[in-house]
Every structure is written in structure tokens, then in C-alpha cells.
């Protein structure tokens, strides 16, 4: 019986609403695209931005951790989000969390760093399409105008009645990543689908 789970596929927080997200995307005729990007590797990295570890980790990852508040740096398949003056969220492809963690720890050596696998802590929603701004503006108090929140920006803020990490994707028309705590994801998906009704 022990191997029943061995073959069980991973279940993401929004696997049960994937069909509804796809249906809304389809019904909007291209105005909005909603989809979960499940299982992305996510690591919470804490270190002294001015210390030796910052540079070493940057070299090891081939990606300089952003020092400017509320910005992201992308390199290859990795994205580093500024979360605080000594805190980053490193996002990579599914399954890469262990490798990333050991690379960071190795690079830091004896410098005090904290690395925490938080891949399951949040899931990622893709919100794109010409009406993506309008959709998010129904519940996000931030100014999302491309002049203000363009490519390279991220923010921890609220959407509806839940906290999110919002990331502007690399191209102006590529929309947003909405990272949401997994246990709030169902609420947020319902909220987004309800807010999208007008664009369908």
C-alpha cells in the first residue's frame, strides 16, 4: 500500500480550478488570460546585502540580487524578487529548489545566510491580456500604470482581501505574475473569475 502515493501526481493549490480559469480565458476572446503556473521553485533568501555573501551568491547564480526596493532581476530561468532590504524571493523552474538551495549555501560559505524552500508556500497565477491591468485594478490599490509599474517592478501588496506578491513580467504586454499564499489561492481565483465576468 505504501506505493499508492509514489505514483500519485503532485497536486497544485489551483488544480481544481484549472478548468474554470481556462474557460474564462477562452470566453474573454483574448482580453484576459488566467492560468496557474504550478510548482515553481521558490526560495526565500536572507542575507546582508552589503556583505560578502551577496556577491558570492550573485556569482553562483549568475544573477545579481536586486538592491532597489520592489524590483526584480531576471537571468536565464531565474527571477530574483526584492522582498526587503535583506530578503529576496528566488523563483526558478519546477524542481530546481534543492539545487538552488545548495548552490546558495555553498557560495555563502561561513557567511550567515538563511535559505528556505518556500516553493509550496505560494502558488503563481499568470494574469495577462489587454485587460489584465483593469482586472487587477478592481482589487489592487497600487498604481499599475506602465509608467509606474512597468517591466522590472514587483511589489508585496494586497489584491481583494488577500496579500500577494505582484510581478510585472519582462515585456510590457506580458502581464503579471500574482504570487499568492497557497491556502488563499482558491479565494483569489474565485475573486479573479468574478472580477473577470465583465470582460467575458
Amino acid at each position, binding site marked *: 500500500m505504501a506505493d499508492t502515493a509514489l505514483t500519485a501526481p503532485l497536486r497544485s493549490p489551483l488544480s481544481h480550478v484549472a478548468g474554470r480559469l481556462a474557460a474564462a480565458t477562452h470566453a474573454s476572446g483574448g482580453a484576459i488570460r488566467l492560468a496557474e503556473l504550478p510548482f515553481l521553485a521558490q526560495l526565500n533568501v536572507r542575507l546582508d546585502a552589503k556583505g560578502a555573501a551577496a556577491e558570492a551568491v550573485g556569482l553562483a547564480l549568475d544573477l545579481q540580487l536586486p538592491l532597489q526596493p*520592489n524590483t526584480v532581476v531576471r537571468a536565464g530561468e531565474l527571477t530574483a524578487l526584492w522582498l526587503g532590504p535583506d530578503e529576496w524571493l528566488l523563483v526558478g523552474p519546477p524542481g530546481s529548489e534543492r539545487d538552488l538551495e545548495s548552490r546558495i549555501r555553498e557560495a555563502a560559505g561561513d557567511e*550567515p545566510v538563511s535559505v*528556505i524552500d518556500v516553493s509550496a508556500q505560494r502558488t503563481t497565477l499568470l494574469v495577462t491580456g489587454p485587460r489584465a491591468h483593469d482586472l487587477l*485594478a478592481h482589487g489592487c*490599490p497600487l498604481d499599475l*500604470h506602465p509608467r509606474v509599474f512597468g517591466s522590472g517592478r514587483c511589489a508585496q*501588496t494586497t489584491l481583494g482581501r488577500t496579500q500577494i506578491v505582484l510581478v510585472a513580467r519582462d515585456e510590457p504586454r506580458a502581464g503579471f505574475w500574482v504570487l499568492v499564499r497557497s491556502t488563499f489561492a482558491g479565494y483569489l481565483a474565485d475573486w479573479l473569475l468574478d472580477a473577470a465576468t465583465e470582460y467575458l
Partner: protein
Amino acid sequence: MLLIPCPWCGPRDEAEFHYGGQAHVPYPEDPASLSDEEWARYLFFRDNPKGPFAERWSHAAGCRRWFNAVRDTATNEVLAVYRAGEERPATLEPRPVLSAGSGAAAPEGARGTARPAPTHPQLNDNPRGGAGGEATQPFRHPTRGRIHRDTPLTFTFDGTEYQGYRGDTLASALLAGGVIQAGTSIKLGRPRGIFSAGVEEPNAVIQIEEPFPEPMLPATTVELYDGLVASSLPGQGRLATTPDPARYDAVHAHCDLLIVGAGPAGLAAAAAAARSGARVILADDQPEPGGSLLGTAEHLDWVREVTAQLDAAPEVRVLPRTTVFGYYDDNHLLAVERRTNHLGADAPENVSRERVWRIRARRVVLATGAHERSLAFANNDRPGVMLASSARTHVNRHGVLPGRHAVVFTTNDSAYAAALDLASAGLAVTAIVDTRPEPGEWAERARAAGIEVLPGHAVTGTEGGDARLTAVTVAPHGESAGQREFAADLLLVSGGWNPVAHLFSQSGGKLRYDETLGSFVPDTCRQQVEVAGSASGVLDQATVLAQGAAAGARAVEAEGYTPETPRLPEVPAQPRQTPPMHVYVVPGATDGPCFVDLQRDVTVDDLAIATGAGLRSVEHTKRYTTAGTANDQGKTSGVLASGVVAELLGVDISALGTTTFRPPYTPVSFAALAGRDRGALSDPVRTTAIHEWHVAHGALFENVGQWKRPWYYPQDGEDMEAAVLRECAATRESVGFMDASTLGKIDVQGPDAGVFLDRLYTNMMSTLKVGMIRYGVMCRPDGMVFDDGTVIRVAPDRFLVTTTTGNAAAVLDWMEEWLQTEWPELKVHCTSVTEQWATVALVGPKSREVLASLAPQLAVANDDFPFMAWRETTVAGIEARVCRISFSGELAFEINVSPWQGLALWEAVYEAGAPYGITPYGTETMHVLRAEKGYPIIGQDTDGTVTPQDLGMSWVVSKKKPDFIGKRSYARADTSRPDRKHLVGLLPEGPGTFLPEGTHLIAEGVLPTPPVPMLGHVTSSYRSAALGRTFALALIKGGRDRIGERLYAPVGDQLVPVTVASPVLYDPEGARRDG
């Protein structure tokens, strides 16, 4: 909503922050050396100044950094923010107080000399089709108005069917049908007629019956649609009894410039800003831009030109049908957009009916116009009495003549322009009654048009039946002799103009009395706002336009954009102005009430009673008489009431001022304010990775914070009692399992992690060995229990802390506050990992067998895997961290896996446990099992006034550690009182007698006369399968010294005898823990 500048993230809405109290109150270096009084001063005493105050704030929904802010407690202005550990800035200047207007001169050429009026009353020829409907709409003007004569509409009012056109309001359509009476008054039941043409309407407040019931709407603001069914009201509406099927939503918007009002000033401001590149929002409550110009039918080509220009500007958003109703801190304004109301039954279902706009504007231009003021004379409430400019609006906007024969009663020039325009539209203006002895050039013009002008006269009374006015009595102003009577079905009144200063006043702006205008105008404000046009008290049209353009230009220029000089319409030369006369109460011989507030039926006599009773302020007379408190909020009556009270008191109106303007400017429905935050979306619902299994297996759920937790799993028609007894018995006798994923989990990492936890917990954590687990209690500095949970040592510099389900965020905040503000030298980081794990608690004597079958590589024997140890292994093929902890006293394991595999683990456990009859259980069974063992639940058995010692947990309070949060408080006299409340068990005398939670306990078996001395109360109460009886936990004064005593619990009319017992009622020797 304040905009608080986070030192890291920049300005964010106040809602993203948590308040942390006074800053710069450091934790004492050596609490043990302080006297009780000094320690109490640290714990309980904080400054409370009026003015600048340094406070701690946390950007809780953002970067989680604590910082300091200096806030002026009187104005709420944040004067400075600085990072934790930095010095408070020395000198702080508040924002300067700004003038509401610039006073900039209007450009040459655009300047006129008099009041707004066309020199030649012009026909507003309707381009949209021919006349029609004369039979059913006898008061319809053949050509004027902006109605769509090709779109006739049918509606019903008070059971009678009428016709109107698209572009009508309900009020104008009723007027076209010859109906002016639209309700009766709330207290006196007097017939009342349509009084205005806009939001200021006090009388014609109606009920919509279909398509969806909606009470108390001014008929002057309801756009007509086909199939509308409405009825008149006796001053009070009826709420719908069925749920509202419409959608409502909200939008956050940001702009460089928000212009409120699309009249001449607002349009000029928008035209100046439109092509600068600045982000502009122009909000107006009407369906189309133009404002007062729509009512006077002037410069409509310019309105069209500017509207087209705005529509073409990419960064300009024009919001029609949008009322800005609230002006809050830091230029945060709320508006409501009526999106589909005007479509009636044709409203699309997927479009929100109303939308709340939450606008954050860098700068605001208020171009909100002015409302015409009424006058208090005898029987001034008869249907047919109407504001002069409103009658003109009905003609020019809606193509409706409000009557056939009018008398005009005025104290100023503006009513002449209205009278001349109305006369040209075919209304017979019999006389203009002017209180001014020498009305000047405008009077000449009226006489030239054949209208009799009575200078120095006033209206002293009216005659008429229920439906309409029939005659007007006129006498020399201030005299009773020399009366004349005029037959008239319309009396047009103008007592002057009140700038619409509501939003300016809400913004914190101060008003001042304007002598020329005889009313109150915007003066100064701390926010970035300008007032332009007649809202600033300027009524001359050329100046209004120039002021608007200048205000719009200044605003975008201040934001770094280059404005342009917009084309403004040529305003023809006007007759020379004659100053208005300030009249409020008209003395008269005719008996009859002189109404001030029509909607509240408040008369001059009522205000006289108020001043006679000694009231000296308009705020007091308002509350005494209710004047100004109706849902029109006194728009036509407020300044009039101030004027009346001033006369009654014999003081100048400037000394009295107005009552305070508060949001909303016009009524806003709760549905609109709620938006989509209702029903299933009213609050987030948090569910675990295993949730759908619980649903599928019939669980009922308990709300714990925002979580849905399985409460119990009833089978075959079981009630709660039966289900919980079954779940408890199965778990104690064989094996049960529950979803424990909701417990808060915090990763604490860094070389100083042990030191940090030693300071936070009452017991020692740094000595915990890797691979082991310790239970801990966290207290506040006052020594009271704040949270509890287990701590796992993952590695030498890494711990995993669990918190109670409801307290996870608060504990993380608490950790960050101490770390960032008091102990920044500690090298440690805290990160929430609550959702990184799904947790299955496997509980009961057979739990070891079940685990062994699922984790063949794990040595599960007691010696190999002792109590309070954890192991990494695979369970059901899933990587897992298994902890041997117990919240029930039974042998138990907590299996933690990735939530992506949580459901798979749960199902595997269910399958593996089947041979032992494994039973899923919920929170209720968990509560019973832990209570049988006397384990408290923080927040249920404690309430912030309970120490660990009170709970009988002195063992968890370290005697060795030099200090930890709360330690000093245990040496206070108060925490060592012998009569503190202790947690004890209670056994009711009858084994089936159930004590409701919250039941008080007393010493005597007879209820004494009050006050009854209370000994404590029941905190938890259950039926126990293991004990075969009911039992309770309670906090009782000196409880541990009362064990064995009999106390009494008043339950209903009964005094239930109970015996005080140890809180540990089951397996006190702990024999079951190791299986």
C-alpha cells in the same frame, strides 16, 4: 485612507500597515533592577500628545519592515518616516496651508462683466427629430431639450402610465405629463412637488418598484428608462425584501489630476490639462458633460469640442454618471459610478450596476458648481414652488415647461436670466418680485421683454390645492399693506447661490463667509486641492471659465507637465450687475408655515423654538430640530437655516458658519460600498490541501480565523454529540487522524536563533538537541500568555516554530518587531512556512502500527523514536518529517509532507489504518481529547490576563534564564496574588449535566442578593467518552487550593453543584503517551 510612506517601498495605503504604538520606548536594559512602579511605567504608560508623535509602524502587507513615523495626532499628517534605529528627525514642518483658489486673473478678452445669461435668449433647437407626444405630454416643449424624441419610453408612476423620452429624468417626464406633486412630507403629510432639477432635490424623493425595488431616490436624478415603475413616498421609503441580483464592484484609480465636475470650470480645467500627458480623471454626476451649460443651453458647441478632445486624449478618463462622494486623507477620493441603472431591465447581467472608484489623485480641482438657495416665506412648500435655475434646466435639458404662468421671486440678478429664457421658451412670466429696491439693468431688460418687475417686494404667501399652486401673494418687502395677488401655477424662487463646498470641507478645508455672495466659500486647505468656478463663489461665466483653465494648468504644471492654453468660448458682454440682497426669512402677513428644511418639515418657528430653548450654534439647532439631517443633507436648506438662526439670535451669519459636511455627498447604497466583498467573497476562505476529502466525507466545518477546519464527521444521521463521542472513543481505543495543516509554522534560522528563542519563550530553547522537539509558551512583557506551540530543532542554527492556527501572523509580526526594533544585532531570520507543509496527526494506541506499515525504513519503537523526537523518512513513499508529539495524551505522530502530496498522504493513512478502523476526527474531538488531559487552548482557556503559572504550568517558566519577555512581570505583586484565577477541572454533580461555556461560578448554594461575588467562569465544556460523563475547564480564583470543593454554577434558573478537580482528568500518570 492615509498614504503612509514606507521608508523602503514608498507611499502605500494605510491598510497595508500595522500600528505599533509609541516609538523610542526601549526595553529596559535590566528589568530585574526596576521597581514594580518603574516596570509598570514601562508596561502601561505611553504619551498621548496632541501634535507630532513618534510611532512604530510595520509594513505588514509589504516588506514586513518595522519603521518609525512622526504623525501629527491632530491632523493625521505623517510628518516624517525613518528606519528603526535611526534618530527622530529634529524639526518637522507640516504641509503648508494652501488657498483654495489662486485668485489668478482671468485673461483679457474672455472677461465678462455680469452674471451668466445669454444676451438673446436662444432656442436650444433639438436636432434629434420632430416634436410629438403633445397629447400625453402637455407640458413638453416642441423643440427644446436634449431628449431623444425618437426614443419614446413608457413608465408608470403611482399606478398611472406616462410617456417620456430617453434623456428625461423621472422628474422631467412627470412634469411633461403635467405632474408636479411627487410625494407628501414626512411629518406633516403636506403635498410636495418637484423643487429642483438635480441632486439637491428635497421633495420629489420616490421609490422605484420595478425592475428592482430601491427606496428614496430623488426623481430629479433618476434617468428615465422603459418600463420604470415608481411611486411617490410619504417622506420615507421601503427596503427591498428580496436579494439584489445586480453586481457591484470597485476600481482603484490613480491620476495626476482629478477634476470633479464637468461644467464650464471643470471642462476648462480638463481642456488645459488634456494634452499635457498628465493622467487626468474628469468625474461628473450627469450622463453627459456640460454641467450648468446644459441647463442654460449656452456654449454647447464648446462643450462638444472639449468633450471630443478629452475622448481623444489617451491619458484622460472621463467618468460620466459618477458622483464623487467622499474626500479623505492624502487626496483619496471615493466616487460612485452608476453604470447600468439607466438601462432598466436591459442592463447586461455581467456588468456591474454601480462601481465605487477609489481614486488617489496627486492634485484635485473641485469644480462642483453651486446650488441655488431657497427663501423662507409662508407656504413656500406648495407644489409649483421651484428653484428658478432648475426650471430653466428642465426647459433646456429636458424640453419641459414646468408650468404655464410663473411668478419669479428673487433677491439677486440670476433669476432674471432664467425668467427671460423661460419667457422666450413660451412660459408666461407674470411678474418678477425682487426684494431689492433698485434691481438695475437686469430689471430694465425684463421690463423691455414685457415682464412686470416689482422692486422692493416679496412673496408673502401662496394659494393652491393639493396638486398645484394657483396664486401667489406679493407685498412690499417688510410690509403687510399693499398686497397683490397673481394667478400662477409656478413660483420660481432664487435666494442666492451656495457654492457646493461639501468635498472641499470634507478634505479638511476651511470655509469663510463671502459678504458679496451671502454664503460660505472655500478658503484654505492642507491638501493639494483647488476650487474653481462657482464652487469658489464666482458666478460670472468668463471668470468661471478662466479660473477653471488656470486651475487645470497649475495642477499639471506642478506635476511636471506642460499645460496648454485651451480655447474658451467668447462670453458676450452682460448687463451691469446689481449686488444681491441677503434675505433668509421673508416677513409676511399671511399665516402659514415658512419651511426651511422641506425634507424634514422644519420651519422657521421650529428653529425659533430651538433658539428659544437656549441653543446658540447651528450644530445644536440641527440636532434639536433635525434640519439638515435628511438624505438630501440640507443642500437647499443648510445655509438658509444658518441665516434664519442668525436672524433669530440677532447675530451675523458669518459668526455662525455652517454645520459640518460629512461624506457621502449624496446617499450611496451599501451594495455599492460592499462591491464584490459579499457572499462567498466577503472574506477569504483558507483551506488545506486535504480539504476536498473532508468535504467528500461529510465533514462539517468550523471557522478558525479565516480557515475552514473539519469540525466533526457525522455518519448515518449522527448529531454532533454522537459523532464526537464516537470519534473520541475510536481515537483513544484504536487510532484516529486529523488534518493539522492549519497550525502556523515559522522557520527561524541563523547563528543566533537559539538566543532569540530563549528571549521569546518562557522556557529554554537553545539547549534543545537537533532531532528533538520542545513545547513552549510565549508571553507578552506583562507576563500574560500570548501563544504556545512546539519548537523543532532542525539544525544547530535552524528551528521550526509552530503557532496556534489563529495566531500565526501575529506571532511572526511579534518576532519581527523584537528582532528589528530591539535586537537588530541578532543574526537570525524568521520566515512563514505555514503553507510549505501539510500535516496529518495520527493519534491513538494503534498509530504506531499504522505508521510502521507506511514507513518501512523508520524505526518506530519507543526507544528508537522517543516522545518529543522527530525523524526524516518517507511515509507512503512521500518525503516526510515525522514528529512524535501529542495533544491528546495518546501515542501520536504528526506527519509533515509537501502540501502537493498532502492528499495522497492522507489517503494512504486512511487506507493503512483501515484494519484498525481508523477514524477521521475534527476540531471538536481534538478539543475534548486535549481538555481531558488539561491542555489549555490559548485564546479559549486564556484571555490575555492569564500567566503560565495561572495555567499550572510553572514548569514551562525558566528559573535559569537571566531574562525573557514576561519574566520581570512574574515578580510583580499582582502576578503572585493568592486569589489569581487558576485553570482547574470541574465535574458537575450529575454526570450528564452540561455547563455552557462562559457559565459563572459562585461559592454559595443559594443565590445571594446582588452584587453576587463571582469566583470565575467556565472556559471549556465537553462530554467525555473516556470519562463517561460531562466535564469542564474553568478559571477559578485560587482554584488549585479549592480542589475537592463544591461550587455552584447558575445555569438558567438552576444552581448546578460542581466539584473542583485537577485539570488533568484522564490518564494523570501519562501511561498512554508511549503506547
